[in-house]
Structure formats: C-alpha cells, structure tokens
C-alpha cells in the first residue's frame, strides 16, 4: 500500500523574493526521482503539503501550471514555524512534498467559457496556475475571453511581476492590474479590486468568475458580480482551513460534511451556500 503520509523528495532549485517586504517568496522545487514527477499529475487549484522534516508541514496551493514540466512552484508567505523555516532555506536544499491534494478549478466546466480571474494580494497563486494553464498554446483555444483583475495594496506587493508584464503584452488577455495606492513610478491603475471589477464590467454571458483574495476583498467584490448577472454557480472560490493530513482523516478541516482538504478547496458559491458558514 502506498503511504500517502510519506513526502516525495524534492530539491529547492530556485527561490524568488516576490515583494519588497520580502515576506513572500516563490519556491521552485524539482523532483529528486523522475518517476515521482511522472506520477505527480495535477490540475490548477490543487495544493500540496510542503514537508520540512524537523519542522512539520504546511498546505500550500500549487502556483505552477501542469504545462510547466520539470518542477513545481509554491508562493509562500512567512507566517509560523514551517513557513519561516522555508523562508530561511537556500537553493539546493532537499525537502518534501505531499500531493497533489484536493480538487481543482473545474477545468472541464470552464472550457468553452469566458473566464474572469479575480485575485487580491498573494492569494493569486492557484489563479496564476490556472491562467498559465489556460494561455498555454495547447490550451488557449479551449477557453473564451480571459479577463484578469489582480490587485495588491502597493506596487511593491504585487507578486509575479515579470509574468504580469508578459501577460500584459498579449492581446488575448484583458489584464487589469491595480494597486490600492501607487507610488512615484507606478503608471498603472489605482483603485480597489471591487471598483476595478465594476469598471471592467465583464459580461456574465457564458462566463465564469474565479476569485481568491482576502475576505474583505471577496465580500465587496461579490455584489459587483451579482450585479453583472453572474449566478452563484458561476462564481468559484477556494477555501482555507487549518490542515494536517490533507486526505480527510485527521478531522480538522471540515466545513459541515465536507472536508476542505479532499472535497475542496475549490467550491462554487452555490456549493458554499449549502455548507455551514464555519470557515
């Protein structure tokens, strides 16, 4: 029997500091064994337990896309024991990964539809995975228009800056990057995510919104999408609960009858309405 608790060995091959406060870094992890790489088949929206022997494990969304073979990426904010230890690591370190875990963004459902991606702060990780997946040349024609609204408090807090610049050059993405407050060098949009969504006003016709961000952002953005005519079936988000096992055993992460680790983390608003508000 394969033991789902035993982490897959990986090597940290690249560390990118994403923000000027230096507390958010992206870790690129390469599989030590080729067969593990082949077996690790995932979709955007899934997560993994990052495993540091001696420190513990943390669930983190997979920020790379399955269209990027050879490695996995995770963007992690320094928070407690495990994430701080991760931030102290250097390239070349060996660590572990358990996964892929959880469901994913509903790729089949998204196919043929116009996709609106809304992200705030560093909760853009699995949305980045989804975006890179959709705009890959093999996949782009499977999806309709792609509209992105991504915001951070300041320009220095935007993550994936180089990639955003690349996406901005493409004509097949309607990219809207915004900051709450710009600085001397900022030439882009200023304004909160809900306001920018209202301004961009994506049509709800054959469209789905995928949204991740701080609770306040979500609270103020949802009414904008309801006004635009998006149904609760077509607004999709990802939940976070404290986790340990990641496979529905340790009993920690349930919201009602659903375990966020195995039945989630991705839910439509319609599905969340069916659940208790205990998250």
């Amino acid at each position, binding site marked *: 029997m394969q033991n789902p608790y035993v*982490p897959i060995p990986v090597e940290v091959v690249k560390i990118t500091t994403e923000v000027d406060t230096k507390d958010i870094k992206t870790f690129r992890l390469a599989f030590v064994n080729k067969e593990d790489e082949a077996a690790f088949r995932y979709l955007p929206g899934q997560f993994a337990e990052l495993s*540091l*022997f*001696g420190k513990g494990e943390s669930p983190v969304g997979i920020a790379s896309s399955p269209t990027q073979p050879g490695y996995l990426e995770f963007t992690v904010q320094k928070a407690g024991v495990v994430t701080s230890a991760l931030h102290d690591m250097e390239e070349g370190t060996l660590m572990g990964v358990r996964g892929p875990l959880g469901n994913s963004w509903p790729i089949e459902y998204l196919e043929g539809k116009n996709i609106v991606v809304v992200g705030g702060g560093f909760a853009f990780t699995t949305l980045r995975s989804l975006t890179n997946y959709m705009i890959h040349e093999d996949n782009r024609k499977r999806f309709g228009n792609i509209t992105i609204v991504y915001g951070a408090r300041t320009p220095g807090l935007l993550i994936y800056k180089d990639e955003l610049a690349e996406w901005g050059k493409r004509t097949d993405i309607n990219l809207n990057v915004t900051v709450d407050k710009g600085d001397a060098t900022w030439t882009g949009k200023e304004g909160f995510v809900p306001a920018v969504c209202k301004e961009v006003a994506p049509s709800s016709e054959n469209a789905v919104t995928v949204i991740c961000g701080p609770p306040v952002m979500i609270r103020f953005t949802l009414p904008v999408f309801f006004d635009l005519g998006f149904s609760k079936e077509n607004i999709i988000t990802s939940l976070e609960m404290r986790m340990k096992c990641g496979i529905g055993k*340790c009993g920690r992460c349930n*919201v009602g009858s659903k375990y966020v680790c195995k039945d989630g983390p991705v839910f439509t608003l319609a599905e969340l309405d069916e659940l208790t508000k205990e998250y």
Partner: protein
Amino acid sequence: MEKRLIKKDTLADIIAKMAGDVLVYAPVKEEDNVLFKVLEAGMKPLTRYANTKNAPKNFFFPHTEQMMKFTRTEKGAVFAGGEGKSPEAVLFGARPCDARSFVLLDMLFDQDKYKDPFYIEKRAATTIIALNCVHPPYSTCFCTSVGGSPTSSDGVDVALTELGEDYLVEFLTSKGEKLLKYFGDVKAGDAEVNQRVQIGEQAAREIKSHIPAAEIKPILDVNFEHPYWATIHQRCLACGTCTFLCPTCHCFDISDETKGADGVRIRNWDSCMFPLFTMETSGHNPRPTQKERWRQRVMHKFKYYVDNFGAIACVGCGRCVMYCPVNIDIRKIVEDISRL
C-alpha cells in the same frame, strides 16, 4: 461457521496461551481501572468486567504513533524509513459496541481513494474476539439506539457468549477460524445458538437508555444556527476526555520531534474540543468558542458521518457520559435536539 463450547473457567488460560504465540491485547486491572493492555507473558486477562475505561481503538490508532523517521544530511533532512510490518495480534474482550466502532473507523480510514496505511495494516493483522453482554454493564449503555446491540456481531471475528457454566464460541469470519485450535473440540449446535439469541434479546430489553439518535439527522440538517447550541457548552472544560475515551473519535495532529541528527514524525490524538484544534496562524479560528466545538462534536457524530458514510459515529458505549468531569450527557443532548 464453526461453533465450540468451552468451560468458563478455561477462558483466561486459553487467552494467556494465545499470548505466548501472538500479541494479545486484553482487559487487565490496573489500580482502580480496567484497561486494555498488551498481555505480557504469564499474565491472565480479566474475563469478568463491565467494560474497559479506555476504548480499544488505541491498538489500531495509537494515542501516539510514529509515522516515519528522518535524518539530517548536508542538503537538508530526508526520509529515513517507514514503520515495520504490523505484528499479528488478537484483541480479546471487546464489548460488541467497541467491536462495532472498528466498522465505523474502517469507513474513514479505509476509503477507496484515501487510505490510512497505519490503521489499515494494524487492523488487518488483528483478530477481534468479542465478549457479548449477557446483561448491559452500565445504565448508560445505549447501543441499541445507534444501530448496535448487546450481541451485535459487527466487526467481530470470534464471539463469546456466557451460557451458564460454558462459553459459546462462534467463529464468524475466516480470520476468526484461524483461532479454532485454541478452543478445544466440543462442538456447539443450534440449541446453543438459540440460547444466545434469547440472551441477546433479554439483554437488549434490559438496556435502560433509549435515545432518538436515528431521528435527529433531519433536525440537525436545518438547525446549525439554532439558539440551542448556546446552551450546552458552558460547563465544558475543553479537557477532551470525551473524545479521547470515545471509540469512534479519530482526530489527530501530526508533529515532528528531533534528537541530534535524527528525528521522527509522529501523530497524536487531537480533539475538536480543544481551542487550538482549528486555530490558524493568522489567529483566525473558525470555531472560536466551546459552543462551536460542541456543535461540531454533535454534528460530526449524528449528521456529518451520516452524510458521508451513512452511519452514526457513536456506538452507545456511554464512556463520554460516565467520565465527563462536569456531567455533560450526550444522551440528553440528543433527546433535546429531537424536540427542537
């Protein structure tokens, strides 16, 4: 299925003999408590006792369990080996309610997609000999309200029933039949089985606690926000006794321990009654007070488990009722909910 009769006073010796061949877990007296323990060489198990204080889940899902070892290298700590094979074992003396708890735990730990090898391997390596209840041992027993009975065979490999001076020994599974050789050659027949059935019916009639456990699920479905939830937890000390003693509670924590260059990853029982159970690093806690934690405990047993597995996650053993230091009684809570 094979059936045997043995003399009552030979049982302890039979089990002690088994303990010379395989690992045996059995009830023994320790100070004032009857506890399931590993039967050491030369020890005899108790055969007359009400029930054990601890549930037997410990043998498949230990309070503390080593999951794997790791060792530090120049490039970081790496996996250094899993657990050895689970030894062949016999669990003697489980009451039918406790034997049933394993059927419920199997549903969680042994799912099609997600399997827990630590539990599954120990469970597979262990044969369960249950001691049927000729009389319900406590006034708090309510197995018949949650799908069990004093002679339930769910989860049982070998069932023992006291019949006068004898025990009827029923080998219910092929795993159980492997223990045939310990139980002599006096065959039992339909007459003894009929006797067992009657004893079971009589014992069921003697059960004093009856609660509408099977009826509250639709009420729980629509009453997550009911003011009733604010009325049960005030006395609760969040000690976790109820969940630690419960044969069906399965929540755990995972943590690492290091010593020099080596270390182990272990899991420990955890409890939804503990404030930190769901506390996130940010300080956000989706279950901020004991009210939400108690609601979780009730919902998990009587609604969520039913939603997910079609079974109530309580076997009616009454341990949580007997040992709660502030006398919170799950029977009364179920009763109250049925009248919401």
